């Protein structure tokens, strides 16, 4: 069973993707909801809101602990929350040792969709990626060697994996293509 953090954001669309894959899933609003989950999705939305609520409602430490043993998949705001971000309004979970900048392509008018190639299971697969007020991963040269970069857009990483943790700067839940969700479920099943 997969938990989907449901403090704010488009958690319903992730739930629909997992339904399509016949994977049981529940919405997570309290730390006790994580009991029995094999993995967690942190959806897109506003990272300031989710960070604040995670701290206020005691989810921060429990998700951090959960992430030490289990799979976590973050998209857009979820990637920011999995990073080492540290500011007045956002403290990252530090599950991925990356630095990111928020809304780094500009306002909504600069949101875009592009075909990308994803390197998974030793194959290159096509995927339609939509970036909405998306973050960017900073300083690629300093990315930890233990991290796998699964996809690039114009030479910069947009999808990254470290062990059981994956994150995308784009929204893999938006176009009915379950490729990345399936990949996440495979990572979790191999860990069982």
């Amino acid at each position, binding site marked *: 069973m997969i938990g989907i953090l449901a403090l704010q954001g488009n958690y319903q669309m992730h739930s629909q993707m997992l339904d399509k894959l016949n994977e049981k899933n529940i919405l997570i609003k309290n730390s006790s909801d994580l009991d029995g989950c094999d993995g967690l999705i942190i959806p897109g*939305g506003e990272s300031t809101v989710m960070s604040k609520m995670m701290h206020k409602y005691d989810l921060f430490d429990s998700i951090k602990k959960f992430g030490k043993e289990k799979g976590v998949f973050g998209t857009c*705001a979820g990637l920011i929350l999995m990073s080492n971000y540290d500011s007045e309004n956002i403290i990252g979970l530090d599950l991925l040792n990356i630095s990111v900048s928020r809304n780094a392509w500009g306002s909504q*008018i600069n949101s875009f969709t592009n075909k990308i190639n994803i390197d998974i299971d030793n194959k290159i697969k096509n995927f339609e990626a939509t970036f909405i007020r998306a973050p960017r991963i900073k300083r690629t040269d300093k990315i930890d060697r233990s991290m796998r970069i699964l996809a690039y857009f114009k030479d910069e990483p947009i999808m990254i994996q470290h062990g059981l943790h994956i994150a995308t700067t784009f929204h893999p839940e938006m176009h009915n293509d379950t490729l990345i969700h399936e990949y996440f479920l495979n990572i979790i099943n191999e860990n069982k």
Partner: protein
Amino acid sequence: MKKNTYDQKVGLAEMLKGGVIMDVTNSEQAKTAEDSGAVAVMALERIPADIRKDGGIARMSDPVLIKDIQNSVSIPVMAKCRIGHFAEAQILESLEVDFIDESEVLTPADEYNHIYKHNFKVPFVCGARNLGEALRRIGEGAAMIRTKGEAGSGNIVEAVRHMRSIVNEIKRISSLSQAELMAFAKNNGAPYILIEQVAKTGKLPTPNFSAGGIATPADAALMMQLGAESCFVGSGIFKSEDPQKRAEAIVDATTYYNDPDKLALISENLKEAMKGLDIKEIPSEQMMQERGW
């Protein structure tokens, strides 16, 4: 590369679900809103309660005010233009606001036509009181619908009426035959193709948020349980005695809308809410919800 598609516009609305969009009139209030957990802010010169009190023509805000607010927060910034005033909308697009609200809170500029919103790169949100109105706005290109309620009243009764009406009409058309759908489309002035789509999917093609009268955490919880996917709060926050605390409480209530034990804690010690108006006290020509066609 594809940009400014309808999917991307609705996509941003999807990201704002389960959150609170707060009206702010300066950068200090915008910061308070962001710190309290607002998912976006609506930049305007006067909040609806003051527009109602001051009278006169309410127009788009000064671009300087909007830019100030954009510079002070990292969350999306929305701004309002008058109904039908596409030149105001063009100016807001040039300022790169994240969403334009073609809003009944401002004085309408056109008494027959709304803006053709598909022509814009920036997504639009529009108010609606029923399914026909919501689908007319979506037909014109709105990427988000908010029920109108009665802005600046601090009274939830109209927001409830409008949300129930949209939700009930969606339920009703789900059971109609195709011939009956055409009659519904005709009687409600809604595009047939959208009526067909809603009847099939059982929901609007865009997110459906609530606005116009939310003043307490319980109000937000009520609207979310009735089917709202997020809440707009206008006067309810900065017309209350302790705006930051109330803002935080409404944000928390929007997340934990179906958890009464948490809602009880969230509702404690918030000091005075905005005073509010009985809808019967508002002269009919001053009802903002009647604006829009």
